[in-house]
């Protein structure tokens, strides 16, 4: 299967690292977003967990930053095929933010400043798998990378890690977000190469 391009050998990474299928390593931090970068002043920033009708939890920047934080090092995999390994972040675990929320919801829609949305099973936001991150590489997170704060769900393709995140809405059924409505996969597991809708 496949067509061999004679004379093509490619640039292979010397290091023996395991990447998800179809990804290549970069040391850059490329940017992908659908529109202009929103600039959100900290005194107007808030993060809200709701169920579509009622607000369940709300933080302003100060109360958010009073939450216990974690530092963590994770690999990032973008659907545009770059992977960046060993990135270091500081953020608040979604486990902490969801701790007092009683819900039987199955899914969540992350919502951003600039009206971006992305959907995930709620279980993917729990059990030490997801954070609201505000520092990258020991520096405040730059606006083009999602600052002041972004969702980080590193086990899924990076479009699930909503930049400029402002809240999550809990849902009783799955619903496509922005890219998921435009031809990208509803779940987005890089290890199963779930890039586009129709990929298994």
């Amino acid at each position, binding site marked *: 299967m496949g067509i061999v391009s004679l004379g*093509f050998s490619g640039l292979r990474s010397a290091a023996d690292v395991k990447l998800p299928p179809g990804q290549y390593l970069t040391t850059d931090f490329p940017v992908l977003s659908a529109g202009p970068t929103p600039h959100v002043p900290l005194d107007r920033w808030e993060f809200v967990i709701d169920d579509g009708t009622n607000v369940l939890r709300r933080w302003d920047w100060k109360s958010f930053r009073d939450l216990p934080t974690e530092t963590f090092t994770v690999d990032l995999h973008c659907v545009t095929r770059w992977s960046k390994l060993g990135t270091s972040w500081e953020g608040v675990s979604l486990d902490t933010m969801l701790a007092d929320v009683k819900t039987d919801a199955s899914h969540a829609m992350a919502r951003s400043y600039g009206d971006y949305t992305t959907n995930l099973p709620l279980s993917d936001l729990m059990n030490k798998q997801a954070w609201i991150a505000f520092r990258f590489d020991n520096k405040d997170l730059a606006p083009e990378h999602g600052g002041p704060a972004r969702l980080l769900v590193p086990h899924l393709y990076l479009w699930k890690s909503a930049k400029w995140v402002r809240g999550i809405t809990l849902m009783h059924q799955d619903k496509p977000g922005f890219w998921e409505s435009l031809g990208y996969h509803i779940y987005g597991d890089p290890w199963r190469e779930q890039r586009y809708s129709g990929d298994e």
Partner: protein
Amino acid sequence: MMWRVGTVIALHEETATARTITLEVSDWPGHVAGQHVDVRLMASDGYSAVRSYSVASAPNSERRIELTVERLPDGEVSPYLTQQIAVSDRLELRGPIGGWFVWHAQQTEPIQLVAGGSGIVPLMAMIRSGALAGSTAPFRLLYSVRKPEAVLYREELQALSDQDHSLGLTYAYTRIAPEDWPRPAGRIDAALIANTTWPSKLGPTCYVCGPTSFVESTAGLLTAIGNNPDKIRTERFGPTGERQ
């Protein structure tokens, strides 16, 4: 999404570093201007590399698409596509991909295109699509490019601009401008945006494509003169992304 096979039927050198590859794809389902394809190259030992390239041609009834590829010095796929591939070679590709950075022939509002370097490619598909469809949507293109010799599609753009004034065309040279050029070489700034793009009160849809820093700065300037962020669509590529 399935992989398709494209056969190279023509090669055209656009500049010293950019080449247009015309592919015949027998099962091509059609595309919308602005979409891209993933191209996969495989070495004889099975190693493969995939990169995304914008389609440069307008949607048409033939099973043909054109990709314009800019050679990146440290690129993995672009050197092969711009230097080694030959007519009648076959390539694996899948697509069309992308439903956001697209222009549909039904759109009638003014269109503002802003290209940085090879970011012109998907915007050219929009311009060609408009011309082919006989669209009444007025187009303006602000094209930022290093130097005159790096301009892609110059003659075609000039012809469309001369022909019926449906395309307003402004070049911004960033490193070297032609001798008689009214504006010194330099990046797109607030004055150029204010003087050459559609007034925001006309409600244009803006498409901005280029390197990340170019898109960041240009989208910011378009927002600053009153364009609604909802009406600004962006596509960015970094040196590692090879996305055009």
